[in-house]
């Protein structure tokens, strides 16, 4: 074989290999996508289904080691009762840890209000949880880099790095953050990051008997929660803040704050 022949053969051979490799990518693109497996955790709350049992709050506190008797919680359930003459009553006694076992509304400062069945125009429960915003203001304000957003969209707090200045607690428009009474650092819902990264549901989702709380991956078009968010009418809390929250609600009402 002369030099010309050898070079021709080499070029042909290389082109063949490159083409075969390229075809593999072109013909089966879904495999290339699956290998990357993009994840963005989102949450879906159906307020029609919520019955206010508070098992989610109980499970969250016990799972995540939030002192049970302290009046702080990563998640809570709000009750809204709107009377026929337009008055709005809302309460969440003990973050609804023990559910709602009375028709009396807790007005705070030891005052209660009984609302008769005939007076009620509409009444419902709204579970609240960290919105895991796409543009989290709580993360931006941290002066030491102790709170951050992971690649899969969850905002976490580094307990070893947090200095407890409280800026993030002030910055959250949803009031989701609080001081952990034991660790003395900022604390928040993290969608049970230790569970979802193992492929199991967050404790509140597991505990909910009505499937009012669901978690999903918005980047997976086959995900049942992603399908609901993409095809049905859903709302987020306080979109006017520009935080791009990622907890979607079915059946929100303007009275919900």
């Amino acid at each position: 074989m002369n030099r010309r022949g050898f070079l021709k053969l080499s070029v042909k051979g290389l082109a063949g290999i490159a083409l075969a490799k390229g075809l593999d990518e072109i013909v089966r693109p879904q495999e290339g996508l699956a290998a990357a497996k993009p994840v963005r955790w989102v949450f879906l709350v159906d307020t029609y289904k919520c019955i206010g049992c508070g098992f989610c709050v109980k499970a969250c506190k016990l799972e995540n080691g939030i002192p049970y008797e302290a009046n702080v919680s990563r998640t809570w359930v709000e009750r809204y009762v709107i009377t026929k003459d337009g008055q709005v009553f809302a309460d969440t006694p003990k973050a609804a840890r023990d559910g709602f076992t009375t028709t009396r509304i807790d007005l705070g400062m030891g005052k209660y209000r009984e609302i008769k069945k005939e007076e009620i125009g509409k009444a419902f429960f709204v579970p609240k949880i960290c919105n895991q915003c796409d543009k989290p203001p709580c993360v931006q304000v941290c002066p030491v880099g102790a709170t951050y957003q992971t690649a899969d969209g969850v905002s976490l707090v580094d307990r070893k790095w947090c200095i407890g200045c409280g800026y993030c607690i002030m910055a959250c428009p949803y009031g989701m953050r609080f001081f952990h009474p034991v660790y003395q650092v900022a604390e928040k819902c993290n969608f049970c990051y230790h569970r979802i990264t193992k492929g199991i549901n967050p404790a509140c989702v597991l505990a909910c008997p009505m499937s009012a709380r669901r978690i999903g991956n918005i980047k997976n078009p086959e995900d049942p929660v992603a399908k609901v968010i993409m095809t049905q009418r859903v709302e987020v809390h306080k979109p006017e803040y520009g935080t791009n929250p990622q907890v979607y609600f079915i059946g929100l009402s303007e009275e919900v704050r």
Partner: protein
Amino acid sequence: MHVLRPLYVVLALVVVILIARTFVVPKDFGIHERGYMYSWYRKASEEDWKNFKVKYQGRDYCKDCHGEQVQQLRTSPHAIIECENCHGPVIDHPSDPQKLPIDQGRELCLRCHTYLPYPTSKRVEIRGINPDAHNPDLECVGCHDAHRASKPK
């Protein structure tokens, strides 16, 4: 030039701080996937959270030893309720804790079965009682079997 001496002190301080910083700040602290604004942090912290202890195990964990009870619950209207909602988190039971508490208080049942006349909520569809009028001094489990969700024995 004695007027420059404070400047030397400041420069020396800056150098000392910069050197100290390389020892104090962990190697994995820096800018990650979401950029400086949202992910300037210590990467190992993610692992710290991933290694957090799972406490709620779900009913599949229970059925290996308590199959009879799980099966009974499955065929009742209470099938939608997780074992751990009433019995507490499993953690590493039966090694830790060796026994799970059995909560037989009224308050547990009343979470769902206090009658609340709330339209636009599923709560109104659940059979409920007025806790002040319905045998206020008795425990529910005296008459009702929670695993069967049956009418009184």
